[in-house]
């Protein structure tokens, strides 16, 4: 066999994988899963709990697409191990709406067209929620900083910044949105 220098894959020892029964609290519900201990939170959410709202773009911690919240902090689920997160408070995109009522961030993203293909959206939404929970009136630079680890290839980021500002404005009452004076989108 000719080993591939570039396409190497890391594989855990095959059949005798060590499994564990893990208790996870996701979006307020407790689940028990019996999974190999090396299985990532991303995989367990998507494959064992059917929460496919959380996406992946690299599975190597490089793109932010798989972001979920753990105790309110953004975490890359492709690098996180469930066994270390038992009984912690995990929130995914499916947990943003309450009783079917969407979170203001979700509404703002939909209204402003901040989700084009929508693939980066779940990760960005939860990262933005974490920011607004901790800093309800962020500056534009603070929003950029908070989302800098999340890549989006469709939007050029502009509409996302505008949507986070709009949601913050609606959640806190009025203050001047910095993107408001960019003059984006003057019509014909």
């Amino acid at each position, binding site marked *: *066999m*000719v*080993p*591939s*220098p*570039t*396409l190497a*894959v890391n*594989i*855990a020892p*095959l*059949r005798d994988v060590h499994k564990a029964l893990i208790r996870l609290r996701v979006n307020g519900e407790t689940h028990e899963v019996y999974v190999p201990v090396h299985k990532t939170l991303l995989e367990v959410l*998507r*494959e064992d709990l059917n929460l*496919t709202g959380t*996406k*992946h*773009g*690299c*599975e*190597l911690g*490089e*793109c932010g*697409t798989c972001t979920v919240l753990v105790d309110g902090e953004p975490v890359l689920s492709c690098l996180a191990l469930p066994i270390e997160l038992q009984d912690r408070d995990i929130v*995914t*995109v*499916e947990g943003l709406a309450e009783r079917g009522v*969407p979170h203001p961030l*979700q509404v703002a*993203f*939909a*209204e*402003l*067209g901040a*989700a*084009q*293909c*929508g*693939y980066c*959206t779940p990760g960005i*939404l939860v990262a933005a929620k974490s920011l607004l929970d901790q800093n309800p009136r962020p500056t534009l630079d603070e929003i950029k*900083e908070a989302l800098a*680890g*999340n*890549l989006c*290839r*469709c*939007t*050029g*980021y*502009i*509409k*996302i910044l505008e949507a986070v500002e709009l949601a913050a404005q609606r959640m806190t009452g009025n203050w001047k949105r910095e993107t408001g004076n*960019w*003059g*984006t*989108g*003057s*019509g*014909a």
Partner: protein
Amino acid sequence: MGEEKEEYSIIGRPLIKVDAMAKVTGETKFADDLALPRMLHAKLLRSPHPHARILSIDTGPAEALPGVHAVLTGRALPIKFGILPVSQDEEALATEKVRYVGDPVAAVAAVDEETAEAACRLIRVEYEVLPALMSVGEALAREDVRIHDYGPRGNIHKEVALEFGDVEEGFAQADHVREDVFFYEGSTHLPMEQHAALAAHGPDGKLCLWSSTQTPHYVHRALAKVLELPASHIRVIALPNGGGFGGKSDPFSHEIVVCKLSMLTGRPVKICLTREEVFYAHRGRHPVTLWFKTGVTRGGAITAMHFRSYLDGGAYGSYGVASLYYTGALQTVTYRVPRYKFEGVRVFTNKPPCGPKRGHGTPQPRCALEVHLDKLAEALGLDPSEMRRRHLVQPNSVTVNQLRIGTVGLGECLDRVVERSGWKAKHRKLPFGHGIGVAGSAYISGAGLPIYWNALPHSGVQIKIDRGGGVAVFCGSTDIGQGSDSVLAYVAAEELGIEPEDIRVVTADTDLTPVDLGSYSSRVTLMTGNATIQAARKLKAQLFEAAGEKLGVPFDRLRAAHRRIFDRDNPEAGIGFVEAAVLAEAKFGTLGAVGSYTPPKGLGKYKGAGVGPTPTYSYSAAVVELTVDPETGFITVDKVWLAHDIGKAINPLLVIGQIEGSVYMALGEALMEEQAFRKGVHKIPSMLEYKSPTFLETPQMESILVETLDPAGPYGAKEVGQGVLLPVVPAVLNAIYDAVGVRIDEVPASPEKIVKALEAQRRGRASGNGRLPSVTFPEPTVVQPTGA
């Protein structure tokens, strides 16, 4: 089609997309979100060599691994395929030769991904390593090492030489003639979603493939060919794509492989490429060396243009023949070019195949041309925006290469960005380190010819109305984030006088939906929009007839809006849409109608005339203002103004979204993105290393919409998905020159190149791109201009 109504109730409004809530709640299902009972997982074994002969493949140990259900090699899939009929040069799994690192060689289906991966590592492949040809120069020099055994000679995949009018005569008439060489590096689409596909071959012998593809119709064709199944037994469903940008427009090895594996195992089989594999799947921007020679009068009018392009195609044909023609096609549709000569060549190399990325074949020449014009303007002492403005192509004219021009909003686009940016007060007037640059461009709103030359429509739409007033629109188009599903709903709602949320859209399913050729060449809004209008108007006529009878109002006075059908002269007199639907069904039977769209025929009859014609060209102009740190060469883009001739904005919100996304992608290409290789291996196959702009690099952006109401488009609409990328890249290069006085005739304009150019300038040395690859082009086909 393009006729104007007094006022629209849906068209032109910034409505939310029909799938917006599904996307923000995580409800939207992408290909890798699907799972079926008894599903197996597939992995591909890929070549570690850029160029090698396969001597043997031993799959025995892999087959013996517990949990493995099937191991596949190219012997089981010997029929070649490819997106273009003229380049059927790909194999689902290589049989005799591998041509790039990452070329698929074998595949495994197993109970889980880990087992499939482990089995791949047990497959023994013996290779005889062949010389790797990693550049156009090398590939041209080594005619003895042929990557493919087709093409005119050596490693030339395709060559072209066309002359329209006598360029030498034009150069003789010029006051000033200038030549420039440029290099535009390749880059990749980097969609956030990795390609995924799920196949299920049922006990009834029918096959279904769910895939993240922009072109389910062409995948359908390729599957029928390679798997030797009747097309009628194959169903291809394209899921919403998590970003495409052209990277999911080819039929891919992994799509064919999961189908075959499902046929062999009788179980559903899924694959999701790793991010590294996505870099190898590629089909991205061709690296191109470009040469322009242009003659101009003192006033800046072009007298003749001679252009050459040298495309590094990578290992397979893909869309390459079209990409090559596109590099030479659209130079003539912005500023008037009375004589034009185009010579070009696409060369095979041992790298992942290049193909269509946003702008397909046109960003490279557009960038070079707009920088070249900037230099010409300077030599003539003209303001570069003014020089462009003065020599625009005329509306409703024919170019020298026989392209039919419709409406032209380029002049207004230039005026608007110049005015909004304060250009006159800034150009050549900003302090050292700060600069401003301008450029214009044009793009097609859908290719005039289909990939398979036939007389069939390019787009089909079917609409059904049920007696509850439910309206369903069926169309083969694929939503890749651009909003094509929403466009169907907006147009149908406008015509039928209902709201987009009243409509169910069913798309991209070869069993259920009429063919739309795919989400490429910026064709979807124009073509599906026109087809939808045609279908909807047939139904509207039935609704009006039934409603008119009931109301006693003549047909011509009826209008449909706000879920009612009413008398234009007496809006009180009307009935609800649902009642009208019931009356119409009672009168005519089940309500349904189809519409289709075929673009008008192009004018040119010469070989190559198929690339370039379109129902209508979109136009764009950009001004970029930026700051260059002369010490580090680091560039900060301060603001981008982008004006786009959209014809008519069906939804301005989505148009601006496409503009912002294109500007972003252009800045990535202009400043940092490169698909580069070292010894046959991709230098940077990860998202961390492949530098692309983040939130932190986001400049201010101002999007300006110019509406020219083109008669060819639905309500006058043109494309916006791709053309707006084009002027941004050269505007960046022109702004760098304005800022620090050095020309970077290369993309990306990375900090090292800027520092090097400044250093050369300090030492009084010219920096430049120097030599062109040595190619003897064939005698040009001489085409006598008809228009001009």
